[in-house]
Structures are given as C-alpha cells and as structure tokens.
C-alpha cells in the first residue's frame, strides 16, 4: 500500500484524470443521489430522535396517563388520591357533532376535559389560550380542520348530544398528537361537567376515561408503575413519558427503516452504475497500465493510480451527495409533518454526514474494486500485443468470488444496519442477488440466442446493430443488469402502490353500502329505520349487537391463560370486548370452513357459536372447545360449533363471534344499521335527521372515510414517491451514464464505418438498433421480474390480489426503451457532427 501514498501516484492520478474530468464525473454522478437520500433520511431521523428526546414530556402532556373503559370505581379514585400530584381528567368518546349554522354533521372525537391538562407543552389554539374558556365558561374547542371544512367560525355553536355550546376556539395542535389525527376523528374539547347533560354515555357506548398526573420532580416512577401493576378492581392501563418515547421512537424507526430501504435502492443502483462505468473506464486504462509497467512501475503502483482516482471520485460524489442530502432534509419534515407528533427541529447531524461520506466513498470503492484489481494483472506484454478480452478474465475465479462475496456482505451488512433487522436485511440482499443473477442469466441467454438464430436476411444495418449486442466489447451484460435492476426496483415500487390503491376502491362499487349508523338503542331502532326510508334509502342491514368479554376458555379463566406464558393465545383476543350478533343464517359474505352452523340454540346446555377464522387462530380454539362469555354480568356457556371465513372487506358490520338465535335476544343490545345513500346530499340529509332526533347515534360516512383514507394515502405515497424519485433519477443517470460510457466502445467502430463510407443514416440506424434492443430487452426483463416480485409481495405480504396493470407495463416499456434509444443516439451525436479524424483524436485522450 505504500505506493498508494507516494506523491507520484497522486500526481499521475491527477494527470490522468485531468483530461477525463467530464467523463469521470459521469462515473460518480450515479452515487450522488443515493448518498443524498441516505444523508437526508438519517439526519431527519436523528433530528426526530433529538426532538423527541428534548420534548419527551410534551409528548404525553403529563408524567403519567391512566386509562380505563368504565367509569372509575371508588377504589380507583382512592388510589388516584394516594398517587397525589396534580391531576386532570378527560372523558373521551366518539359522537356526532352537529353545527346548526350550516346544518353539517360529522363523527367526532369528543374530549371532556377537567383540570390543567396539558401539564407540559401547550394546547395550541386560535385565539391563544382558548383552553381557559373550557375551564371558566361553557364553551367548546373544535379542530381547525373541521371548522375550515364546514366553514364554521369562532362564536358559532356546536351541538353534541343534548348540549349546545358556543365554539370558543379552534384547535391547532394537541401535545403528542400528529396533525393527521384530525383527519380520522376531528377533536372537540368540551368541559367535563357537561358530559352528563349530553346524555351520550349509555350502555354499550365506547368511552375512555383518562386521568393525567403531574408529579413533583424526582418522583420515583418505578414505584408508581409498580403500584399501578398491583391488583385493582378495575383494569388500569397506563402510559409514562418513557413508554410514549419508546412508542414514538419505534414508529419513527419503522418509518425511517422503510425510507432508508428506498434510499438504499438508489444507492445500490448508483453502485451498479459506478461499477459498469468504472469497468469500461478501466478497460481503456489497461493499455496505460501496461505501458507504465513496461517503463518499470510495479503492478501495485499502476493499480494505485486508478485506485486513487476511484477513491477521490467517490469522495467527491459523497461530498456532493451529502450536501444535497443536507438540503433535502429540509423538505422531509414538510412531507411527514402531519404524521409526526412533534414539530421537528432541523439541525446538522454529524452522524448522517459521516455516514454519507463513508457510504459514498465505500460504495464507489467496493463496486470499483473488481475492475481496479484487474489493472494489477495488466501485463507489460500488452504493449506488444493489444489486449482485447473482457478485463475480468484477468482475474482468477477465486479473486472474483471473493470480491462478489465482499460486495454481497457489504450490501447485506448495510441493509441490516439500515433496517436494524437481520431478517429484512438478509431477505433484501438475497432478493437483490437473485435479481442480479437472473438478469445476468437473461443477458447471457439473449446473446446466445441472437447469435444462434441470427436473422441473416435482415438489412445490413439492422444486422450490424443486432450483432453489436454480442460482439466483443458489447455492453449487453452491463446495461441489461443495471437497466434491468433499475426497472425492477422502480416498477415494483409502482406496482405495489398501484395494488394498494386498487384495494381501496371496494366501496365505490355501485350497490355497496356507504352509510352506517351505530350505537342505536333498542327503542330508537324503528325510528332510525323509518328516517332512512322516509329519505328514500333502503335499510340494507339492521343488526343487533351485544357486547361481551371472554370469561374462560375450556374452563380456564382468561386471566390465568394470559399469565401463562406457555400458552399460545393472543392476549389481545382474550382481553378485547367482543361485539357479537345473533341470527339464524350465514350471510353470503361468510363461508363455513369447519364444523356445522347451527341457526337456533338448543333450549338447554352450551350454545354452539361460530368463530371467524382469524379469532379462532388467535385464541387457538378449535371445534368443540368451550368458551364462557361474560355478557354484561351474566355468564353464557358456549362451544365452538363452527369456524367460518368472513370477508371483512365488505362495508357492513362483521363479527368475530356469531351466536345462533334464541340466546342473546333478552341481553342489553344496541343496533347497527347499514344503508346506501345515492349521493352526498342524501347522505347529509339522513345523517342530519338521525342526529337531530337521536343525538347519541353515530354515523360512519364511508364516502368521507374513503376520501380521508385516499388523502392519507395520497400524502403517504407522495412522501414515498419523493423518496422513490431518488431511485428513479439515479436509474436514469445510470442509464445515461451506461449509454454514454458504452459509446466509447462503439464510437471508434462507427468512425471506422464512416471512414469506409457509411452514411449518417446508416450509422444512425446501426446505433439505434443496438440501443433499441438493449432498452427493450432490459425493460422487459426488469418488468417481468418486478411482476413476479409484486405478485410475491401481494401474495405473501399484503395478502391481496395483484393484477398487473397492462397500461403500466406498456408505458414503462415504451418509456424506457424510448429513453435508452434517445440517450444512446444523443450521446453518439458527435459521430455525425464531427469529422472522423476529429473524433479519433478526441477519443484518444
């Protein structure tokens, strides 16, 4: 390595690079965007982590949050007293909010507040400190987005249940909550003393009772947690600042893991671009190395000259990439702001910068290693007899194997580092290697096939262009692999997105239900149905719902199963509140998988129920297993009579647990009604009428939800597309640079042909045919592989059906082929503009 540091090596590297500057820049331009993506994402993540750490308490707004689903018992209240500190409580539930001024209604997230929450951070409102109005007067605070949507102003009133109160302010930000939360359930704060008068909390309503604590500094939180874990007569869930921090940290880690992989794809593409470009570059340098060796330089010295170039170039690429990445990070918070619970402070992350430099230089080094090493094998003999073989043939199979292994290890290591997940990292690497191998195989096969079945009857120029695909110095393998891999990555991304979007179109079907009312009390059921009919809509379904919990499974109590770590039963499935229905038939959205469906319960003994496949798996319950449900205080003995598959994608109430008729009829129950409104007006009218007569009933407007989800996905996919853009542009750069680089292979030949009298048109066609085939073949191979990948993703991961969009395929194929052709022709334009002699002299340097 000592010659690496000799000034001669560096001087020679500079002299040699001097006249190649533009060309060398092409070689590294491919890695710039990859590095930029890495730097931007890493520093974005660092910034979030930093912000989350510095604003940890604001994330929760308190030191401790305790939550139950039932009103506090006396014992709980006494326990709260014993905890001490400052306390503030919120009663949270969903309800329709009605705005009399415009007549609009919207299912909202009502939060009845009492006390000084938030203790940390600020409930940002317009006007400032409007939260005081909750404490002093009977006023409501309404989510800014909702007010904008319905054109509501401060001072207008909102009706929640039976209570009408003036709006005292607009909510801009709740500590620890992402802005996007308001898209799902717009938040409305009301004073807690008004909850009873709303008359909204009734049996079966889902309510969360939350109490926030602020403790004096230095309070032993471990002791507090221990006392919360102790036995209470009511299940208390709690969240501390540390836990909240962890949750957010995990979410951020997942997000950045995902973004990082997308960025990594850009980096990899860049690496491949560098590899193929350096390959061609080095090939031209074999002669130089041979001359230098003739003049007495050692093998190592000759190689080091170009190693220096590769490293310096990598460093410059990394520098450009890092600077770009630092710029791009300012855009990232804008993209993700709505999904983040904190306002991210942007700062310089030295870690990200260091990583950028390391990856940039590292990637260009690793990918340049193979061609570089061949230089050390450049025999001085090549000065006597020109070397015109593949340069990799100079290296032993062992050396090549070691380098490929090294590259694979680097990719795997990096993927694992980025995702901090062995499996994902290795899976990703394996996928890339397989794709690489396949593309390589296809390229080889193509060359063989073209040679074998050469169309001898084609016109000369076409034959010449086609033959260029397999003749010595062909770029087929390099271009096929880099283009194909680029197409593969980009179109897989595109297909996945397309596939997810398609999945969401279920509700726009003609006859699909689109309006659901729930929390209908038994005495309101007929009233609601008649309102629907009066408005000209049809009651598609009217289903009773009974809430229950699992008391025991096969005679063992739910609590002891939960505490038994050896049992493979999901705690969630045991704990959750089941909303079950009863009827005597199965619907067409249900398919019996196992056992026998019994429509009517026998008069005595256990009740044969039907479980949805998913919940049977979670409970590890099979046919014949017994389950005792606690139906609002009364134990009901059942056994699993059948297991059925439920199509949960339908817009209708679906049930994990289905009872036969004849058991639950006397139990306290509420109803769910499903209808379809023909248009927005009808939907609004029905909702208004229902909310006016029965304020406790909530409506789910599927259309609204869909448009919410749509805008959600739009925002997310915009963010993803933004990141994917790095890959796409890198792909294009790689494409351009591969083509430009390959031009050096062909130009001498074209000039020779031109000298021999070929017309401009003939050269144009020969060049065009070569790039046409290269573009077409690599686009098709890449697309083919990406369809397989997308299918595998849809089948194994998303569990949805995937039908490749033919238009996408056609457009991508045409686009890519056209682009390759265009770049190929454009970069060969010198051949027609300049005289052969001029070109030969230019190319000589």
């Amino acid at each position, binding site marked *: 390595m000592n010659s690496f540091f000799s000034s001669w090596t560096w001087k020679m590297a500079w002299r040699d690079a001097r006249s190649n500057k533009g060309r060398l820049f092409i070689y590294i331009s491919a890695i710039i965007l990859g590095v930029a993506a890495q730097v931007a994402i890493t520093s974005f993540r660092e910034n979030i982590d930093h912000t989350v750490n510095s604003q940890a308490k604001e994330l929760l707004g308190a030191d401790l949050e305790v939550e139950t689903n039932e009103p506090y018992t006396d014992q709980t209240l006494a326990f709260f007293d014993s905890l001490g500190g400052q306390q503030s409580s919120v009663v949270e539930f969903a309800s329709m909010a009605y705005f009399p001024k415009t007549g609009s209604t919207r299912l909202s997230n009502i939060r009845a507040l009492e006390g000084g929450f938030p203790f940390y951070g600020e409930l940002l409102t317009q006007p400032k400190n409007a939260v005081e109005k909750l404490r002093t007067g009977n006023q409501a605070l309404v989510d800014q987005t909702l007010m904008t949507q319905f054109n509501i102003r401060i001072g207008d009133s909102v009706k929640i249940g039976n209570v009408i109160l003036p709006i005292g302010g607009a909510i801009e930000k709740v500590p620890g909550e992402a802005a996007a939360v308001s898209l799902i359930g717009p938040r409305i704060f009301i004073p807690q003393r008004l909850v009873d008068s709303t008359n909204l909390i009734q049996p079966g309503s889902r309510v969360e009772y939350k109490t926030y604590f602020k403790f004096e500094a230095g309070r032993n939180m471990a002791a507090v947690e221990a006392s919360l874990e102790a036995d209470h007569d009511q299940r208390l869930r709690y969240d501390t600042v540390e836990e909240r921090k962890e949750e957010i940290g995990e979410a951020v880690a997942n997000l950045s893991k995902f973004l990082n992989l997308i960025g990594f794809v850009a980096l990899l593409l860049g690496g491949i671009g560098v590899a193929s470009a350096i390959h061609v570059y080095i090939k031209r340098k074999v002669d130089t190395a041979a*001359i230098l060796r003739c003049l*007495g330089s050692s093998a*190592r010295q000759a190689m080091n000259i170009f190693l220096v170039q590769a490293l310096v170039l990598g460093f410059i690429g990394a520098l450009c990439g890092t600077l770009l990445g630092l710029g791009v990070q300012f855009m990232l918070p804008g993209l993700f702001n709505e999904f983040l619970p904190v306002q991210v402070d942007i700062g310089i992350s030295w870690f990200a910068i260091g990583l950028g430099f390391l990856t940039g230089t590292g990637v260009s080094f690793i990918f340049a290693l193979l061609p570089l090493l061949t230089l050390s094998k450049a025999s001085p003999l090549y000065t006597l007899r020109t070397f015109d073989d593949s340069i990799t043939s100079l290296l032993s199979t062992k050396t090549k194997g070691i380098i490929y292994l090294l590259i694979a290890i680097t990719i795997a290591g990096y993927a694992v580092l980025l995702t901090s997940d062995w499996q994902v990292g290795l899976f990703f690497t394996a996928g890339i290697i397989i794709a690489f191998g396949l593309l390589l195989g296809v390229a080889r096969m193509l060359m063989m096939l073209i040679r074998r079945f050469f169309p001898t009857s084609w016109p000369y120029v076409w034959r010449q262009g086609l033959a260029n695909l397999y003749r010595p110095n062909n770029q087929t393998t390099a271009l096929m692999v880099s283009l194909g891999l680029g197409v593969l990555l980009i179109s897989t991304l595109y297909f996945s997105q397309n596939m997810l979007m398609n999945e969401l179109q279920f509700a726009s079907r003609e006859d699909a239900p689109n309006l659901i009312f729930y929390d209908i009390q038994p005495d309101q059921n007929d009233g609601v149905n008649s309102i629907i009919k009066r408005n000209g809509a049809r009651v598609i379904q009217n289903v009773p719902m009974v809430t229950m919990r699992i008391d025991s499974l096969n005679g063992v109590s739910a609590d002891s199963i939960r505490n038994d770590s050896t049992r493979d039963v999901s705690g969630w499935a045991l704990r959750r509140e089941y909303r079950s229905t009863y009827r005597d038939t199965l619907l067409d959205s249900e398919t019996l998988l196992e056992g026998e469906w019994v429509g009517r319960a026998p008069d005595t003994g256990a009740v044969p129920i039907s479980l949805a496949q998913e919940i049977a798996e979670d409970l590890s319950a099979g046919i014949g297993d017994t389950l005792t449900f606690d139906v609002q205080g009364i134990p009901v003995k059942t056994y699993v009579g059948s297991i059925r598959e439920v199509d949960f994608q339908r817009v209708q109430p679906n049930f994990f647990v289905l009872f036969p008729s004849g058991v639950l009829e006397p139990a306290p129950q509420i109803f769910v009604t499903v209808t379809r409104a023909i248009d927005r007006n009808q939907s609004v009218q029905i909702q208004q009428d229902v909310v006016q007569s029965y304020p406790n009933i909530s409506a789910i407007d599927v259309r609204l939800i869909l448009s919410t989800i749509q805008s959600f996905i739009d925002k997310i996919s915009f963010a993803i597309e933004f990141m994917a853009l790095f890959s796409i542009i890198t792909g294009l750069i790689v494409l351009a640079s591969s083509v430009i680089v390959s031009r050096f292979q062909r130009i001498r030949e074209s000039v020779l042909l031109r000298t021999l009298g070929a017309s401009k048109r003939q050269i144009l066609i020969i060049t065009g045919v070569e790039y046409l085939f290269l573009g077409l073949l690599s686009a098709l191979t890449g697309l083919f592989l990406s369809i397989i990948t997308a299918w595998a993703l849809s089948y194994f991961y998303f569990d949805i059906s995937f039908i490749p969009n033919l238009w996408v395929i056609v457009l991508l194929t045409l686009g890519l082929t056209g682009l390759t052709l265009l770049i190929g022709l454009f970069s060969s334009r010198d051949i027609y503009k300049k005289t052969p002699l001029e070109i030969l002299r230019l190319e000589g340097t």
Partner: protein
Amino acid sequence: MESNSILSVSSLTQTFTTGDHKLTVLDDVSFSIEKGSMCSIVGPSGSGKTTLVGLCAGLDRPAKGTIILNDINIGKLNEDERAKMRNQHVGFVFQTFQLVPTLTALENVMVPLELRGSSAASTQLKATELLAKVGLSDRLHHYPAQLSGGEQQRVAIARAFINEPDILFADEPTGNLDAETGATIEDLLFELNRDLGTTLVLVTHDLTLANKCERVIELKKGSIYRDEVTTDTVAAKSREQVTPPNQ
C-alpha cells in the same frame, strides 16, 4: 560467455497454447550481445521477433531457457523485480509508440525517472532536454493524440532514453512511419546509442537498416537462421569517430 556481454540468451523456448493447440514460437534460441554494440533482428512476419525481444526485455516469461541481462538472470525475478530492472536498465521503443494518452509529451517522457523517485525539477529539466534533442521543444505540452506518428515516436524515444538504459530494444520503431521520418528516427536511435553508449537491439524488416548494424540475427520459424557480424558497418565506423552530439 564473454564478460562484456550485456545480454545472453540460452536455449530460449516460448510456446503458446490456444485451446488445445500448442504453438512453439521460439525454439531453442541462444545468442549473446556485447555491451555497447548494435544488433538487428530480422525475419519474416510471424517468425517470433517481437516475442524474442519481449522476452529479452523481461516483458514476459519464457517457457524454457535463461536470459541473463546485465549479469542478472531475469527468469529468477518476480514481476516487480523485473519492473525495477526494466526501469533501471532497459529502454523499449514500440512499433505502435505506446504513449500514455492522458499524459502530455513532457509527462510521458518524465515517467521512468518519476517512478525512480528522482527530483521533480531535475526530471523535468532532463525530459525537456531530451525532447529538444528529438526536435520537439515546442510540443512539450501536447497530448499524444495531438502529435503525428513520427512525433509520437520521437517522444517514445526520448522516454526510452531518459533513464539512460544499458540496453534499448526497438521493435520496428519505423514500421509505422514514412521513409523520410523513419530515417530521422533511425538516425536519432543511432546517435543516442553512440552518445550514451547504449546497447541497441533493433527489430526491423528493413534490410538496409539492419545492415547498418554490426550484427544481424535472422529468425525463421522461431529459430536462428543466420547470425552475422559485419565489422565494416556504418555504425561501427561512426562509433570510432566519436562525433559531438548535434541537434
């Protein structure tokens, strides 16, 4: 052999295998060359001339036989040792010039000394002097592609002489040039040989040129067909006269 021989080759055999076909290009060749002499190697195309001088200059390894160059058995050296040996004792001029395309004329000439680690200033001075000697003082900063074939070959000769080699191999140095330019190049080679006392091994098709040397080795099908010493040559005479260098 004689103590004043600079190159001695004995039983040199070179074979190439292409596929399963074995081709003997040099077959048991032996000769030795005196220090400071001029020797030409002639023979029909494909007779193994380039292969022979390539081996003598240490650009390749023989299949069999020994080559002793400057009292060193170069068959025993490894690649890097041979590179060092070439740098210190050997000059080479190629039919196809072999200049580094990305270096200027001056830089091309400087390379051998730079490799040795000589001081930059003295190297540049010497290279400039040599380029002046070959008549290219006004083309120092031109790239090879900007020079004519004859000019490129003159740069190559300047480069071959900058390390003051003990022996210079020239493989058809004028093969790519017109007669007149060829003659200039030949004169240059002879002149430098005379001035610096460099042994010259010249591969050529040109019999007049060959006969200017005091010894002619003729190869045919890989073996020495003729090995003649003609003391009464232009070269031998001019060496006795010791004329001052003229430009």
